[in-house]
């Protein structure tokens, strides 16, 4: 059975990978019951609530795997992390392998969840060794459903749902705004209406998914084909996605099954409508003058309010179109042959093509004179590999497996874009660029990039007495992105595992049904997230100089090139155990890992002079990650009518940025002590001492470094202001870095929790998913702005603002809050028709779900589910960009004939 899986991994040593540990039917069933236990997730989409996309399935399901908030699908794609952040530069997104072919999170997000059979998460270096550098940040292997021998099926799965926004910020209503400004003697621009802008920009969201799959097979061939359509009209007007996919997989055996062909085709077309500026939209919805009418003006636009220069009419902002049409095509072919003498060989090739078409339209009433942007990008990715495998047994006691692998990969990306300004009319949208009278030089460009990788790998695995397994692997990875002479890296790994249950002295211990121990060590290289050509001194067009009245384009150095650019390296050591008790009714896994990252790729701040630019991409710093992961599964009740299963995973993770100093071209470079990562922005909050989250060597990546507010105090005008402590006791308050600031918490959670409780009573089942995060903090930048009475009358404020009467925008720890939360991700109630074998119908199921039922938290802002993972300028800061909290109610139907 294993050999038919079109999956390179499955040719290899099964004991190596705990994700592969589907061994006995017993255990398989146990794992199905306690989904969250091991790192193989069997996807039972039927038991779950509405899924935004396939990434949503991973949320809270496996220890060490995090998926960002699903309110913004665009941001969600880049937020998936396996064991946190591994690099400062990018390349933190795990590798996605779909049926053995290299892919990415974006493609995975377009696959219909119902087409997926299993996710396998590979985390340890020894596990990811097979993928080398590409798998440096973890690997998500996806196995899609296939046809099966002797069965011909047609199935339909579909759901329809509605989303409803039910939680908004409590801003002043129009009347309260009028009353308060009147009481304070503040003149306002009264538009004569009453609009709740937060509600104006939302609607009842509508979601639907439809999926039809056909499949079947004979002894020598099987096939499966599926088409799906999904639509998600978000609760925010003008925002949504539509997605059409088609997928065909064929497996065929030849020559008495000695040769196997696997052929797959996958295509997806998606249309996406995004918000042009998420923060500006929600900042405006909260604070735009509530007395303005929610209606178009005589000229068809929306009235702005120039005095509130940092925001705009929220409905007008929704008139800015940011549309994307994406197309993805992939095909792959694998040929696996059994040569005899214990040898199997396989060759594999895959080709993917992605095309993106971006169209942005800014009406004249939203952007001075109007603007249209059109851009297109194409990307070709090919991968080919050849592998050879030898297995041999000497009696029952000795089993060896040896593998050789060679692999080549190339990616070529091209793109072009153009921008026009001064539109003749808004009526043309983005459909005719000729309506723009002005084409600025800087508005047009095109790009080309090519990256290539080559790898060779050898692996040897020896199993003694069916219970002691030793594996070593060595691979060479080379990337075109690294500098000349630094392209190849050598990355070995070693792993041992011990199936203790097979020891004679444990055979009679009946309550213990499973006991596996394993330990591993590995070195991995990473060059992910790095653009090509960083090691070369290149000129790019940079501006215009005029000679004799004619424009001449001048070319400038693109960057500080780094002729020594090479692999970032991660050494990981891990130990783990899997235990099963009482016929695997209770399962427990424990894993500890420690990884040390060195030659860390990062855009280091370098001294100017001697450098021309202040950043260079180099391999200098070091960082460490460690974590402890628990998986726990219990089949609490197991009778004919009742099943109660509880799965729980708990992750403790700690990151420490050790150093950003190091030798570059023989010179010792020292990093600035404080590097801001995220700050608050908005009116009155531009630059200055508005940074909140920092990267500071010696601490976790993303720590809060803030002045300490001892409370509110009344100033000479009778307003409440933040009283800032003179931490260094030098007699005056210095809000800058290195002044009166202190480290006061981290932005990334220390502990993550995922739990699933499922109950079955006869044909009814109930499933509840809980996710939680603990030990981190959130800076409530929204309240800093919205509680500031000084923002009146141009910016609306919270109802509570006049009570506290704060008139200050100083960034301090006053608005630093505990970020702990527990979220009920979904609750699903289902009913399965007990089908009789003589019926044409083989399964029938109905279910109803509520997604995002409730969040329990002490956090005072809109939601604690913000970006607490991705290292970017929003990390840990709730800064006026949270979506209104919404719930989705959906109904789904599954039929199979």
């Amino acid at each position, binding site marked *: 059975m294993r050999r038919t899986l079109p999956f390179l991994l499955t040719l290899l040593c099964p004991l190596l990978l705990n994700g592969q540990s589907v061994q006995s039917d017993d255990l398989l069933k146990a794992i199905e019951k306690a989904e969250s236990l091991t790192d193989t997730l069997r996807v039972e989409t039927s038991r779950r609530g509405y899924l935004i996309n396939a990434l949503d399935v991973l949320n809270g399901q496996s220890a060490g795997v995090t998926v960002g908030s699903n309110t913004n699908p665009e941001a969600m794609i880049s937020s998936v992390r396996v064991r946190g952040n591994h690099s400062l530069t990018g390349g933190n997104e795990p590798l996605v392998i779909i049926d053995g072919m290299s892919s990415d999170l974006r493609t995975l997000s377009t696959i219909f969840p119902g087409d997926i059979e299993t996710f396998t998460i590979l985390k340890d270096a020894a596990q990811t060794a097979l993928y080398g550098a590409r798998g440096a940040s973890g690997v998500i292997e996806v196995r899609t459903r296939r046809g099966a021998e002797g069965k011909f099926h047609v199935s339909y799965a579909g759901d329809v749902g509605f989303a409803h926004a039910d939680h908004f910020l409590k801003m002043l209503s129009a009347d309260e705004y009028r009353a308060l400004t009147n009481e304070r003697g503040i003149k306002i621009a009264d538009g004569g209406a009453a609009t709740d802008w937060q509600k104006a920009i939302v609607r009842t969201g509508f979601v639907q998914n439809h999926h039809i799959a056909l499949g079947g097979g004979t002894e020598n061939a099987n096939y499966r084909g599926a088409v799906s359509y999904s639509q998600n009209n978000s609760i925010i007007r003008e925002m949504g996605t539509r997605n059409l996919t088609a997928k065909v997989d064929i497996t065929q055996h030849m020559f008495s099954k000695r040769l196997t062909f696997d052929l797959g085709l996958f295509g997806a077309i998606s249309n996406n409508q995004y918000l042009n500026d998420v923060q500006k939209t929600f900042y405006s919805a909260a604070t735009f003058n509530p007395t303005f009418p929610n209606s178009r003006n005589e000229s068809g636009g929306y009235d702005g309010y120039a005095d509130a220069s940092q925001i705009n009419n929220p409905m007008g902002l929704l008139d800015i179109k940011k549309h994307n049409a994406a197309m993805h095509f992939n095909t792959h072919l694998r040929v696996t042959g059994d040569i005899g003498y214990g040898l199997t060989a396989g060759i594999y090739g895959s080709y993917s093509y992605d095309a993106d078409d971006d169209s942005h339209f800014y009406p004249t009433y939203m952007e001075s004179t109007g603007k249209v942007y059109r851009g297109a990008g194409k990307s070709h990715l090919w991968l080919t590999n050849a592998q050879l495998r030898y297995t041999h047994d000497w009696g029952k006691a000795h089993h060896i497996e040896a593998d050789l692998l060679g692999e080549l990969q190339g990616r070529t990306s091209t793109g072009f874009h153009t921008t026009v300004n*001064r539109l003749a009319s808004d009526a043309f949208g983005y459909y005719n660029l000729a309506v723009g009278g002005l084409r600025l030089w800087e508005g047009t460009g*095109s790009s080309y990039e090519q990256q290539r990788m080559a790898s060779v790998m050898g692996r040897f695995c020896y199993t003694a007495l069916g219970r002691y397994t030793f594996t070593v692997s060595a691979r060479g990875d080379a990337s075109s992105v690294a500098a000349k002479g630094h392209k190849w890296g050598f990355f070995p790994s070693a792993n041992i595992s011990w199936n203790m249950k097979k020891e004679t002295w444990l055979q009679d211990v009946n309550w213990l049904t499973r006991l596996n121990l394993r330990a591993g060590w590995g070195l991995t290289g990473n060059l992910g997230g790095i653009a090509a050509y960083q090691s070369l001194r290149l000129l790019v067009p940079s501006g215009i100089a005029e000679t004799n009245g004619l424009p001449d384009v*001048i070319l400038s150095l693109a960057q500080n090139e780094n002729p020594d650019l090479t692999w970032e390296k991660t050494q990981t050591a891990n130990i783990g155990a899997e235990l099963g008790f009482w016929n695997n009714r209770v399962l427990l896994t424990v894993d500890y890992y420690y990884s040390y990252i060195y030659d860390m790729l990062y855009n280091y701040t370098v001294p100017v002079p001697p450098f021309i630019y202040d950043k260079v991409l180099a391999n200098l710093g070091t960082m460490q990650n460690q974590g402890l992961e628990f998986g726990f599964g219990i089949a609490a009740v197991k009778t004919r009518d009742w099943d109660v299963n509880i799965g729980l995973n708990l992750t403790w993770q700690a990151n420490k940025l050790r150093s950003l100093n190091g030798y570059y071209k023989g010179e010792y470079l*020292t990093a600035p002590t404080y590097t801001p990562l995220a700050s608050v922005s908005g009116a009155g909050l531009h630059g200055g001492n508005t940074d909140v989250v920092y990267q500071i060597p010696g601490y976790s990546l993303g720590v809060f470094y803030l002045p300490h507010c001892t409370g509110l105090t009344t100033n000479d005008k009778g307003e409440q202001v933040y009283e800032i402590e003179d931490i260094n006791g030098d007699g005056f308050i210095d809000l800058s870095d290195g002044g009166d600031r202190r480290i006061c918490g981290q932005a990334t959670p220390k502990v993550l929790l995922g739990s699933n409780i499922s109950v079955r009573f006869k044909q009814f089942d109930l499933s509840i998913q809980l996710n939680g995060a603990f030990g981190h903090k959130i800076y409530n930048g929204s309240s800093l702005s919205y509680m500031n009475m000084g923002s009146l009358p141009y910016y609306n404020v919270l109802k509570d603002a006049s009570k506290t009467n704060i*008139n200050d925008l100083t960034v301090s720890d006053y608005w630093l809050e505990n970020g702990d939360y527990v979220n009920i991700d979904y609750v699903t109630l289902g009913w399965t028709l007990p089908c009789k074998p003589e019926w044409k119908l083989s399964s029938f199921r109905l279910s109803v779900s509520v997604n995002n039922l409730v969040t329990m938290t002490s956090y005072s802002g809109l939601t604690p589910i913000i970006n607490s993972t991705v290292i970017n300028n929003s990390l840990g800061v709730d800064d006026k960009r949270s979506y209104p909290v919404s719930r989705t109610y959906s109904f789904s139907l599954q039929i199979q004939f």
Partner: protein
Amino acid sequence: MYHQPYIIHIRLIYISIVCVLLSSCSFLNEEPRSGQAEESIITSAAILERQAVLSLYDHIGGNEDGVGLQGTYRGIYDLQTFASNEAIIPVRGGDWFDGGLWVDLYLHSWSEDNECFENAWLYLYQLIGLCNHSLALLEKHSELLSTERLNCDIAEVRSLRAMAYTYLLDLFARVPIITSEDIELNAIKQSERSEVFRFVWNELQEALKYLPDERSNSRGEYYGRVTRPVACFILMKVALNAEIWTDDDWTDENLPDGKLIKLICDGAEKNAWDATIYYGEQIFTSSANYALCQSQTNCFAVYNETASENIFTIPMDPTVYRNRFKNLFRSLHYQHASALGYGGENGSSATEETLDVFGYGTKHKDCRFATTFFADTVHVNGLPLILSSGDTLVYHPREVLLNLTGSPFVANAGARMSKYAYDAGGIFDGQLRNSDIVLFRLADVYLAIAEAKVRNGQDGSMEFETVRTREAIALGAFQEPRDATLENIYYERWIELMWEGWHRQDQIRFSRYVEFPQERYETVFPIPLKALQTNSNLSQNKGY
């Protein structure tokens, strides 16, 4: 025999892996297409000159914060203007607090990591680095050019580099002198202020003989470039500030005497004041025919390339250049700007002191007030501007405060920047415009000569009066007579050069920058924190 197929297979795999390894040598080579190596670009003299010389002028203006000599935010211009007492960006309720950035500049309570310092440092050393690269490029490809052209190009690049050093001299004083693109971090040492001064002087002296005596502010071959009159202007400024810039300890009360500072001018030794006069007069006698415009407003007209007074400008054309001019955008009230078809940020305003110097609210109000500021009732197209609150927009110049929060004049306190003519062709909120940004102009030369003469014990009244009465004569108005004393020259410079980024330098030269002797260290900004942290050879300036 039995094992043969097995061996063949292994060999095949082995051979194929070796093939892969061998071929990977070229397989892994990078061949960029949308960027190109410098060597492959420079194929002719014209391209060499464009790359080595013209390309540098893309860095005089800027389109992002902190970059360029003027027009953008949070860089050199902001330090020269908002750290002086000429203008202020008050906190206006929810706007313009910006973490105390503007308040710190105004009160001189800045910390070492103020982003303006960081930006100015990076920008100037980047320009210097690019100049050094250009010099290396000219040397490498010297065979493409005649000796004469080569000398001219080298002179132009060195002048531009010297100009960058004059800004460093003014802002940070003790800075490293870097003259080659291949320099090791360990070799970087700060020079004393007087050494930097001498370096700048000598560089410009050597360059001067090769620079063409052409106009830089007019469209044509030299548009926006450093020509001889531009270099003379820089030399004049360096000489004028010689007392300050040759002082290696600016925290003590001793100041070198300008009469005793000896400078070589075209081979002849002169004192600082005679040198100032000498290079000022070089501009007067230039064959490029500079003359004061009839009115100051001509310098700031929409199409000011023809202004006979302008010496060095940042070329602007909304359809050609990326250079931004955000100074007006930053100052005007939101609704004032939008009535003009621009965007505005309702920020920068004249200080109380500026209003006093202009005689605002007195019967002696200087006639240039009306073109330098928007004040009192705002008119657009001849009609008073009605706000959405129903009120008429009135700027209240005297209501300006450091923090206007809670004031009834929170949005409309302060006289706003005007100076530049209204340009209906401006786009991007009026940030991309037609009027070139004026950096150096002849009125400044007149006033510098007047000042040098007075400091040298001579009479500077002719030059002083020429500038002082020009606008009044143009308008047929009366300008009350004043003596050409140092104090009056100081005030005249303030009035004439308001919003042009000179006032901090003037305040320091006229000993008006700090109130107490112990604050003298503030006349020089601290070496930016990041520069110190990334280069342990650098030490902080005194007092910080």
